[in-house]
């Protein structure tokens, strides 16, 4: 009987074929044995520019072109390898020190083995993406070598060998092959050394016995020129085992449960999975929203939080009822409580320090005193982390944690205080404390062990001096994950070749004119904020013979320039939105498009996407149509200019009349919207006035709203709604829409209760209409700002609006609560929002202008896009706000402390939060800031009153108008600058 199996001897091709066998567990619980055949080849190039053999055999594409070789023919040398070297890191090297590889000073000519890349992907997706990014960058010269497919470097697994050992052997084999291969084929006399980088002692030892060049990361970095600086970026994983031999049972934190146990529990509904959030006011209090309960579960105290960091996906267990508590009414800030901790010693012994315990103790006492008035909330404890969502954090070194006697290049351990208050202090080991003090630093968390009070991290890089504009701006961009690197070349290659000289083709025969309407004759103008360069939208209105009006909204035709799925489109979809900072704009699209070719600048012809309605004088839409067009804007107004022009009776030209028509119609539209129950919400908006030369902030002003603002707004809303209806009709499953869910009533509970007890107003949240009406009723005749204050607070109770793909929600869920519209999308700002660009493509396909691109009707892809732009959108807003807050602080910096009116918006038992409308900032005033010594206080939680006695007698209640002194202050201990508020009088 001839065997059916492939055996090594019988088959002449057998050596080219191998197979991999593994077990795959699917989500649905299936467990399968998977066999993959591996076909080994000999034409996978080594990609060294020195090698001549590979040049001949390397596969070519259909056009007969060769992928250019990556590795330099003159690689850099080090002390040990003066002849130059190629690096071959193993998986752990990438996992532990990706930041090192991203350095621009070293780490060039790196061979990334396929096996390593795959392992990195399995272990950490973010690191994998960074590594892929490196392999794509042209100047870093990272080459992915498919060692698993090259005959010479393929390593079959041996009997009884673990996967890790086999992979290590594969790495060594590849290193060996590279060395031998280059020696054979190189045309240069000196062959660069091929150096394996690994932190695995065993692997290093084996490599050395095999006669390979191998270094640990620390050894290698030590050979580099600026090695000392880079040393800080290597996590100190190795020496940690040595320094800390704690006996078992002395761990500070409870151990996490096994994944299978947690998953079983979650499936059975005994345990709950969700995203862990930390309260911004109390670092010892977290909350987690789980599908099983309508309200979030509280997680109190270090032990229960059990090493979870804000944003992690965790599994929690609900605690027994006698552990249930109320959410804290007290401000607990990490830096004040743990101020004097010593980062070097971990001998604090117990997990919860005495001070923390005391802070929590008071908490409990308070809860118990009050017995049953407000029900305690269920609490939970973290029993495991499903996914760490650690990112890189920006912060600065806690000055007090630096030992004064630090000298030389000794490694010190210091605390880093992250900018984000929700992130715990990070222990950092560094040799350059003196240099890093007072700088903004970017760090990454490496690990958080059971026996370490704080997570351990390493330095990524220094952003620069604290409070310098560049460092702070970069810090907040990093903190909000805004992509701010310049556009790569591949993106810029997608721009029109003509550059700024691009013009709408003169001949209407040109393909660019196909199916475009010539609207150059219309009197179109744009109205935007002063200095706006990326003009998305322009308008026109003219009377029709039948007494109705023709109104047009013309949007920059970005989709003409950004074709689906090219590099520029991908980059834009990742960026998602343009981010506006006070002094800077981070564009979604390259400048050329955003501020020139797409921008509907006045006096030049531009491509546009037009929505044109016929409207009755009462503002009813008679008909609407959509068309691609060519327009010529007659004027670019600022809001103020447009307002002046409207108000100036002497201006009677057609353009001005058109604007007046628009204004009249917009008022009617607005009234209709308000009648339908649209909310007018509020957020404290301010504007920073800059000195024009140095762009230093000199003053802060609240934004003024003009009629013309709402003119533009109304027509944009109308255009968005019209387009939303049209694309939903054309693509019922895949239209990109925007919804704003009705907020759950529980969100308003507290505010309603506050309004009821303090001012006896009823907040009716039955519908958006009812809410709008009850908000309108909240007026304090003595205090005009009170209504705005309530609106600001109501806004914070709302859900955030989100993009979604129409197939993912039921039609009633499409509703936009705030705008009281049944359907809504974003169409009017394609230069600065990616969603609008997608809407443009969908509308173009819907009106038959172009063929439907697969990317705009693939639901999976659109869902991914929506998810990303929702996050980007929120981050952009946060970054913008943070930027304003920073500049407000800077504007206050050198001014005498001003006394300002402020309103109390939140009360704790040991402090309260005030909002200063003039600057649009909030500040916390603690009891201990009121007077020295800290006055005794009585907190009436039911009536939201905090009365102090003793060293200072004040009575502060919610919504109260107080006078505060606003000044800028630098905390000498933490080195942190912030706005300081002092209560002048209540």
């Amino acid at each position: 009987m001839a065997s059916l199996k492939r055996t090594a001897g019988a088959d002449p091709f057998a050596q080219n074929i191998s197979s991999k066998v593994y077990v795959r567990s699917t989500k649905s619980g299936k467990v399968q044995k998977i066999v993959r055949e591996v076909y080994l080849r000999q034409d996978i190039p080594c990609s060294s520019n020195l090698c001549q053999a590979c040049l001949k055999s390397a596969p070519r594409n259909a056009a007969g072109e060769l992928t250019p070789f990556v590795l330099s023919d003159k690689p850099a040398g080090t002390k040990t390898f003066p002849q130059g070297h190629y690096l071959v890191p193993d998986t752990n090297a990438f996992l532990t020190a990706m930041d090192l590889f991203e350095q621009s000073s070293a780490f060039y000519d790196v061979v990334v083995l396929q096996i390593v890349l795959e392992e990195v992907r399995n272990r950490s997706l973010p690191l994998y993406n960074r590594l892929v990014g490196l392999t794509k960058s042209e100047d870093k010269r990272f080459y992915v070598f498919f060692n698993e497919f090259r005959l010479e470097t393929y390593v079959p697994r041996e009997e009884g060998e673990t996967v890790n050992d086999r992979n290590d052997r594969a790495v060594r084999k590849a290193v060996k092959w590279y060395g031998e291969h280059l020696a054979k084929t190189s045309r240069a006399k000196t062959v660069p050394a091929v150096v394996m980088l690994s932190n695995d002692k065993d692997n290093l030892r084996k490599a050395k016995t095999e006669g390979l060049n191998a270094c640990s990361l620390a050894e290698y970095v030590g050979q580099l020129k600026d090695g000392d600086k880079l040393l800080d970026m290597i996590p100190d994983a190795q020496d940690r085992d040595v320094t800390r031999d704690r006996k078992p049972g002395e761990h500070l934190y409870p151990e996490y449960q096994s994944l299978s146990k947690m998953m079983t529990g979650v499936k059975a509904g005994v345990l709950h999975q969700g995203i862990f959030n930390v309260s911004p006011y109390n670092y010892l209090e977290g909350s987690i929203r789980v599908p099983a309960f309508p309200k979030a579960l509280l997680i109190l105290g270090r032990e229960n939080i059990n090493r979870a960091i804000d944003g992690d996906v965790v599994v929690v267990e609900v605690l027994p009822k006698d552990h249930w508590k109320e959410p804290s009414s007290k401000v607990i800030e990490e830096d004040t409580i743990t101020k004097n901790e010593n980062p070097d010693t971990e001998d604090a012994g117990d997990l919860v320090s005495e001070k923390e315990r005391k802070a929590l103790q008071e908490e409990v006492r308070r809860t118990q005193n009050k017995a049953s008035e407000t029900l305690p909330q269920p609490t939970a404890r973290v029993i495991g982390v499903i996914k760490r969502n650690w990112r890189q954090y920006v912060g600065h070194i806690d000055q007090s944690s630096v030992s004064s006697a630090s000298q030389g290049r000794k490694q010190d351990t210091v605390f880093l205080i992250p900018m984000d208050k929700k992130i715990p202090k990070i222990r950092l080991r560094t040799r350059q404390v003196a240099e890093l003090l007072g700088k903004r630093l970017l760090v990454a968390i490496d690990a958080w062990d059971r026996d370490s009070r704080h997570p351990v991290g390493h330095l990524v890089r220094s952003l620069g001096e604290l409070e310098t504009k560049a460092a702070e701006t970069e810090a907040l961009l990093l903190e909000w994950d805004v992509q701010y690197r310049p556009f790569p070349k591949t993106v810029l290659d997608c721009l029109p070749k003509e550059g700024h000289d691009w013009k709408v083709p003169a001949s209407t025969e040109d393909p660019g004119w196909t199916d475009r309407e010539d609207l150059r004759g219309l009197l179109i103008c744009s109205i935007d904020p002063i200095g706006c360069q990326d003009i998305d939208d322009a308008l026109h209105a003219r009377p029709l013979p039948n007494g109705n009006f023709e109104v047009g909204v013309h949007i920059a035709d970005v989709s003409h320039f950004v074709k689906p799925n090219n590099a520029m489109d991908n980059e834009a979809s990742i960026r998602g939105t343009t981010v506006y900072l006070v002094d800077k704009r981070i564009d979604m699209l390259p400048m050329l498009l955003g501020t020139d070719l797409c921008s509907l600048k006045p006096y030049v012809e531009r491509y546009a996407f037009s929505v044109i309605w016929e409207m009755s004088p009462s503002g009813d839409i008679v008909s609407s149509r959509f068309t691609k067009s060519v327009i010529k804007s007659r004027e670019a107004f600022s809001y103020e200019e447009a307002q002046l022009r409207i108000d100036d009776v002497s201006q009677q030209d057609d353009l001005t009349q058109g604007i007046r028509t628009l204004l009249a119609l917009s008022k009617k539209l607005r009234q209709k919207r308000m009648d339908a129950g649209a909310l007018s919400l509020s957020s404290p908006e301010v504007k920073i006035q800059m000195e024009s030369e140095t762009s230093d902030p000199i003053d802060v002003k609240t934004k003024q709203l003009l009629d013309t603002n709402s003119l533009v707004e109304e027509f944009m809303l109308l255009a968005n709604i019209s387009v939303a209806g049209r694309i939903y009709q054309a693509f019922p499953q895949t239209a990109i829409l925007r919804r704003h869910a009705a907020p759950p009533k529980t969100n308003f509970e507290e505010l309603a209760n506050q309004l009821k007890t303090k001012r006896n107003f009823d907040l009716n949240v039955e519908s958006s209409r009812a809410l709008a009406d009850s908000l309108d009723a909240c007026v304090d005749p003595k205090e005009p700002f009170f209504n705005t204050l309530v609106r600001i607070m109501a806004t914070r109770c709302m859900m955030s609006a989100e993009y979604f793909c129409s197939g993912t929600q039921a039609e009633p869920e499409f509703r936009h609560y705030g705008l009281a519209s049944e359907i809504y999308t974003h169409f009017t700002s394609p230069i600065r929002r990616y969603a609008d660009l997608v809407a443009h493509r969908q509308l173009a396909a819907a009106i038959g202008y172009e063929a439907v691109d697969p990317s705009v009707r693939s639901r999976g892809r659109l869902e991914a896009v929506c998810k990303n732009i929702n996050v980007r959108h929120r981050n952009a807003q946060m970054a913008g706000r943070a930027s304003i807050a920073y500049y407000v602080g800077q504007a206050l910096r050198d001014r005498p402390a001003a006394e300002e009116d402020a309103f109390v918006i939140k009360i704790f038992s040991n402090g309260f939060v005030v909002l200063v409308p003039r600057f649009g900032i909030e500040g916390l005033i603690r009891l201990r800031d009121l007077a020295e010594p800290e006055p005794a206080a009585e907190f009436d939680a039911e009536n939201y009153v905090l009365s102090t006695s003793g060293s200072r007698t004040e009575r502060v209640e919610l919504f109260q108008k107080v006078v505060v002194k606003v000044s800028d202050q630098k905390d000498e201990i933490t080195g942190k600058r912030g706005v300081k508020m002092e209560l002048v009088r209540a």
Partner: protein
Amino acid sequence: MSTNHVLLSPAELAYLHASLSLLPPLRPDGRAPNQFRPVSAETGVLPGANGSARVCFADGTEAIVGVKAEVEKTRTRLGRDPEEEEGGYDPAAEAAAADDDDEGGSEDDRKGHSDWVEMTVEIPGQRDDEAGTVFLAAMLSEALLADGEFVKRLYINRRFHWKLYLDILLISPPLSYPLPLLSLTTHLALLATRLPRLKSEGDEDPLFDDDWAMSDYLYARVAGKAVSRPPLTLLVMAVGSNIIFDPAKEELAVADVALAVSVGEAVAGSLSSRTGSKKMEIDTGIGGGRNLRLLSVRTIDPPSRLTPPGVPNEKNTAYGAAAVTAAQKQPEARTVETESVEGVWKAPRGGAKVLVMAALVDKCLEKGGVADEVFDALEAVDLG
């Protein structure tokens, strides 16, 4: 029975029957009565399956068996603790259980169910719902399920078990009754079957090691040898008082009685690691060979019963016998059937004799006998 007809004349049948009745019997292929046809076998022919085997008999029949395993939720049967109803996971109960026995799931908890094995037999040229094929599958699965020990191996925890799909394929035309071939192949495939190693503990949702090299054999092996073996079904027939193993098609055509005997290993100390020690008391320690245990016996209707009887020469008109009238035909025909004439084929009638049956079964269970030999032979196959 579905064994296809052998085209032998009554005279040939009579000759065969006579030679097999001799002492010792003379088999057409010259084998000894307890000798198997030469077998060649290999395992692991189907890389994607959890276990597979291929066996060829020297007569050209060939079979492949693939074993696939899937994780399945155990459905609670009536009368069991409602706590354990589908998906009912109670960490407290589990913790309590974990306290009781550290092995997680003591022996008595391991319960199997015959639903956990699904077997399909495919014979080329035959419908899969044909009685003969179904009967074959029934016999093969009966051997596996008879004592309930096999399905216990498929137990994962109280909430999950492996579901085993056995696909048994005859890939040559059915030249002889395929039962022994299929049984041998199935046995070998089960020996070679490996299941991913369980990583989770207790009654958690099972989580498995993704390294195939770490997977466990369904029949645990120590130092390259299985400590216990799957059952084996042997085809035995008797002609007169002669007992003949592994009959060829022609031999079966003259069998007085044919039996499918399933034997398994009696649980000796080796299996106790899984199934507990109370089985130990069953006759052990006699030494030499293995303790075999009868799992099931099925009689197979031998095709000989369907063969037409021979006509003695004196009755044959062609040989000068007087032509009989229609009226005379009836009684004479009866004499032909009742009377046995030397050298004239007569289909066997009536059931098997109890003594013969007992002898057949005894022969199968004989220490160091044929079954033992076959077990040994299959053990020698490399499970690569």
